C-alpha cells in the first residue's frame, strides 16, 4: 500500500493536475497513524482560519504529527504528489499566514509542545515549535531567567510561529526581535530532509541562514526545533505614565527620550480614543482628557532604574507633559500596563469588529502619520484607535467596523491599505511584526519594485523548487501586482506595463 506507483499517481490526478483528496488521504495514512490525518469537514473546521478570522478556507487535509520523522514523512509525500503545505503553530497570527489552502495539507505542530532542555551554563533553552512563548519564561522563572520577545499574544502564541513571523513585542527596542534571540533551528525541507541552521556557537560557517529563515512565514522550510537565548531577569522595572494635551508633543517626547541617551525597555503610546476605551474597560487610572499618553518602562539594576527614571521625568516635562506618574511598586506598574495590554479587547467592547494594522515608520514621523490617519478616518467615515510601540515607531491603528454592515469590511480593508501606503510615504514599512501573510500581499507590490520581488522568488525557489511551502503568502507574484495595480490606476500609470494581462 505504501508503494504507490507512478501510474497510480497519474490516475489520481484530476483535470487541473492536482491529486484527489481520497488518494492523498490514502497516501498519508499508508505511512502515518490514521488518527493524525484529519479529513472530514468537522475535524478540519478548527483549522479554517488563524487570528485574521475574516479569511477562512477549509484545508483538504490536516495532519498532526508528533515526531520530526512524521513531519519528514508528510513533507516527502506532499513533495511527491505536488501538494502544497501550510504549517501552523497556535494559529494566533494576525496576517493570515496560516490560512489553509483548499487543495493543500495543513500541518499542525500543536503536538510539538515540550521544552526539551534548559542549559543554565550557556543560558539557552531547546524547545519544540508548538511551545507557547510565555511557557518558556515560566519554565525558567525560578532560575531568575526569561525569554525576552513578548508579543501581546504571548500566553497563546507558539515559539515556532514567532520564528516564522520574526515576532516582536513591547520590549524590542532594548531586547530585539525574535531574530536577535534565537541561536539554532532544526528545519525540515520541502522534500523531507532535515537541516540544522545555526549552531551552538554565536556564529556559524557559511551564510546567515538563521536570519533568512526567521520571518520567512513558512515559505522556506518547516521549523521543528528551536534553541532560544535566555536572559537574566532585570532586578527592577519601573514605568512612567506620561500624559500630553497634544499628540505632536507626545511624538516629540519619544524622540527626546531617545536623544537623551536612554534606551527604555518599553515605550508605548495610546491616543485619545484608545485611552478612553481602555480606561472604561480596566480602570488603569489613565487620564481620559489627555490627547495621548506614553508608558515608558525602565529596567535594570536598582541604581540604574532610579537614575534613568528621573532623566525620563525631566525630558518629558521639558517636552510639555501635562502629567507624569511613576509606578511606586510592581502592583502599580502592572496597573499602568493593564490598560495597554487590554487595548484590543477594550475595542471589542465598543465595536463589533476591529481591524489591526501594523506599519512601522521613523519615530520623527509619528505625529504626522497620526494626524494623517485621523484625516483618513474622516474620509472613510470609520473610527480608529491608535496603540503604538512608539519606541520602535511601530503603529497598531485599530479600525473599528461592523462586518454585518454590507460593504464595511471591504471599506475597512481599503482604509487599512491607505494606512500602509501612508507609512511607506513616510519612509516606513507595511508590517513591523505581524507579517505579510495574505493580508498585506497587495501592499507588497507598493513597497517593493519588480526586481526585488523577483529576487525574493528566486530565493524561495532555492529552498522550494516546486513552490509548495505556504504558496500565495508573503511575496506576491508579478501577475498579482499587475492585477492589484489595475484596480488602483491613477493618472493612467500602470505598474508593470510590460506584463501581459490575462
Amino acid at each position: 500500500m505504501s508503494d504507490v506507483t507512478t501510474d497510480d499517481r497519474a490516475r489520481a490526478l484530476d483535470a487541473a493536475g492536482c491529486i484527489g483528496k481520497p488518494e492523498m488521504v490514502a497516501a498519508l495514512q499508508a505511512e502515518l497513524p490514521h488518527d493524525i490525518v484529519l479529513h472530514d469537514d468537522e475535524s478540519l473546521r478548527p483549522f479554517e482560519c488563524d487570528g485574521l478570522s475574516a479569511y477562512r478556507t477549509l484545508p483538504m487535509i490536516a495532519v498532526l504529527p508528533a515526531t520530526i520523522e512524521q513531519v519528514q514523512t508528510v513533507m516527502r509525500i506532499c513533495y511527491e504528489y505536488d501538494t502544497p503545505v501550510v504549517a501552523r503553530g497556535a494559529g494566533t497570527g494576525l496576517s493570515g499566514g496560516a490560512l489553509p489552502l483548499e487543495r493543500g495539507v495543513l500541518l499542525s505542530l500543536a503536538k510539538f509542545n515540550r521544552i526539551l532542555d534548559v542549559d543554565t551554563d550557556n543560558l539557552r533553552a531547546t524547545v519544540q515549535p508548538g511551545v507557547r512563548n510565555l511557557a518558556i519564561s515560566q519554565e525558567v522563572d525560578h532560575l531568575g531567567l526569561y525569554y525576552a520577545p513578548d508579543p501581546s499574544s504571548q500566553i497563546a502564541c507558539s515559539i515556532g510561529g514567532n520564528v516564522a513571523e520574526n515576532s516582536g513585542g513591547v520590549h524590542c527596542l532594548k531586547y530585539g526581535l525574535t531574530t536577535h534571540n534565537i541561536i539554532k533551528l532544526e528545519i525540515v525541507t520541502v522534500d523531507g530532509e532535515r537541516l540544522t541552521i545555526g549552531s551552538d556557537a554565536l556564529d556559524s560557517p557559511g551564510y546567515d541562514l538563521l536570519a533568512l529563515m526567521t520571518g520567512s512565514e513558512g515559505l522556506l522550510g518547516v521549523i521543528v526545533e528551536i534553541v532560544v537565548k535566555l536572559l537574566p531577569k532585570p532586578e527592577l522595572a519601573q514605568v512612567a505614565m506620561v500624559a500630553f494635551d497634544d499628540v505632536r508633543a507626545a511624538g516629540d517626547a519619544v524622540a527626546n527620550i531617545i536623544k537623551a541617551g536612554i534606551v527604555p525597555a518599553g515605550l508605548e503610546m495610546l491616543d485619545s480614543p484608545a485611552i478612553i476605551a481602555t480606561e472604561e474597560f480596566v480602570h488603569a487610572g489613565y487620564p481620559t482628557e489627555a490627547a495621548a499618553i506614553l508608558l515608558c518602562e525602565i529596567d535594570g539594576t536598582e541604581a540604574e532604574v532610579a537614575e534613568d527614571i528621573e532623566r525620563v521625568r525631566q525630558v518629558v516635562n521639558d517636552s510639555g507633559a501635562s502629567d507624569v506618574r511613576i509606578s511606586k511598586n510592581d502592583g502599580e506598574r502592572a496597573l499602568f500596563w493593564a490598560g495597554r495590554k487590554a487595548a484590543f479587547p477594550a475595542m471589542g467592547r465598543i465595536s463589533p469588529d476591529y481591524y489591526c494594522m501594523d506599519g512601522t515608520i521613523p519615530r520623527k514621523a509619528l505625529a504626522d502619520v497620526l494626524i494623517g490617519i485621523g484625516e483618513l478616518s474622516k474620509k472613510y467615515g470609520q473610527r480608529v484607535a491608535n496603540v503604538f510601540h512608539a519606541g520602535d515607531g511601530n503603529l497598531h491603528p485599530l479600525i473599528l467596523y461592523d462586518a454585518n454592515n454590507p460593504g464595511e469590511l471591504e471599506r475597512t480593508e481599503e482604509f487599512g491599505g491607505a494606512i500602509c501606503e501612508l507609512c511607506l510615504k513616510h519612509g516606513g514599512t507595511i508590517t513591523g511584526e505581524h507579517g505579510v501573510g495574505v493580508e498585506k500581499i497587495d501592499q507588497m507590490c507598493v513597497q517593493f519594485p519588480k526586481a526585488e520581488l523577483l529576487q525574493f522568488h528566486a530565493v524561495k525557489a532555492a529552498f522550494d523548487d516546486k513552490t509548495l511551502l505556504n504558496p500565495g503568502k508573503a511575496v506576491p507574484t508579478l501577475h498579482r501586482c499587475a492585477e492589484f495595480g489595475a484596480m488602483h490606476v491613477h493618472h493612467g500609470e500602470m505598474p508593470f506595463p510590460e506584463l501581459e494581462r490575462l
Partner: protein
Amino acid sequence: MTSTVESQDQTDALAERIKQAHAAGTPIAIAGSGSKRFLGEPVDTSAHDTLDITAHRGIVSYEPGELVLTARAGTPLADIEAALTAEGQRLAFEPPHYGAGATLGGTIAAGVSGPARPYTGAARDFVLGTKIINGQGEILRFGGEVMKNVAGYDLSRLMAGAHGTLGVLLEISLKVLPTPRTQATRVFEHNAEQALAAFSSWAARPWPISATYWEAGRTYLRLSGATSSVDAAAQALGGEPVADDVDFWRGVREHERVFFTDGENALWRVSCAPAAPITELPGSLALDWGGAQRWRVTDAPAEAVRDAARLHGGHATLYRGDAHPRGQALAPALLAAHHRLKHAMDPAGILNPGRLIPEG
C-alpha cells in the same frame, strides 16, 4: 582620524561593471581597503577583475533621534565612528578595524564584531537595511531605516558575513545606540577553567557586563552603563581596577596584544558555546566573548584544531598561517542549500567566487 575625501555616489558605475561582468561571465573580486582580506579564502586576483568600492563613500543620512545611520559601503569606519561620537552614540557591536582604512562595507561583508558581541549583539543584529547590486547588476533595496520590518525575506541581514558573494554592498542602514555613560574594567586572577566558570555565573545575573576576556592567568571584566549601576556592580563583583581600559580593549579588539602578534605559529579563532569545556591543544589560549570566542596560537595541525572545535559543536577559522580551507567545511546538504542560494543571487557565479564557500 577622519578622511578628507569627498562623498561620492558611484552606484551606476558599479552596477554597470557588474552587468558587463555578468554578461561576459568574468569573475569579480570586490575590494575595499583590504584590511579584512586575510579573512575567508584567498581570491585569485590574477584571474579576476577587481571592483574597488572605496570611492563609493559618504554618510547618506544620520539622525541621532532615530538611532539610525545610513552610509555608502566605501565609507571609512573611522568617519562613521567620528560622526557617531560627536552625537554621543556608537556602533554597539564594536567592529574590529584590522587596518587604518577599514570600510563599513568590508566590516559588514566580513560580519566581524568586537568584545561587546555576546552582550549587545553582532554586526548582523544591527543591520536594518541594505542597498546592493546582485550578480546580474540589478540595484536592489531590502529592509529599511526602521527598527522593525518583516516585509519580505530578511535579505539585508543575510548580507552580513556573506563576504560579498551574494551581492555588492552599496549602502547599509544600521541601528546605532547611545554610548554608555560610564565604563569600568576589573581584573581577577584565574586559571582558564575558573575564568569560564566566572563568565557563566556573571552572565546569569543582571549585571551591566559589556565584555569579558581571559589571557595568561587574568580575567578582565568590563562594565558599561549608568554610573550608579557600574559602580554598584564593580563593588559587588570585586577584582582590581584596570587603569587604561580603553587601550586594553582596543588591543583585544584589534589583535594588537602580544598574544596575537608574537611568534610564527598559526592563529586560530574557535567559535563555540560559551561554557564548552576547554580542549587540550599545544600552544597558548585566550578566551573572549564570555568563552564563546577562543583564540589559539598553535603549531597543531589544522585538522586537530578543527576536530577540537567540532567536539563541542563549534567551528574554527584560521586568522594567520597556512591551511586550506581557512574556515570549516559545511555538511553536504547545507552546502547544497548554500550553492542554490548563491545561484539565486548571483546566477553566473561572478561575485567573489570561492571566497566563502567552495564553488558548486
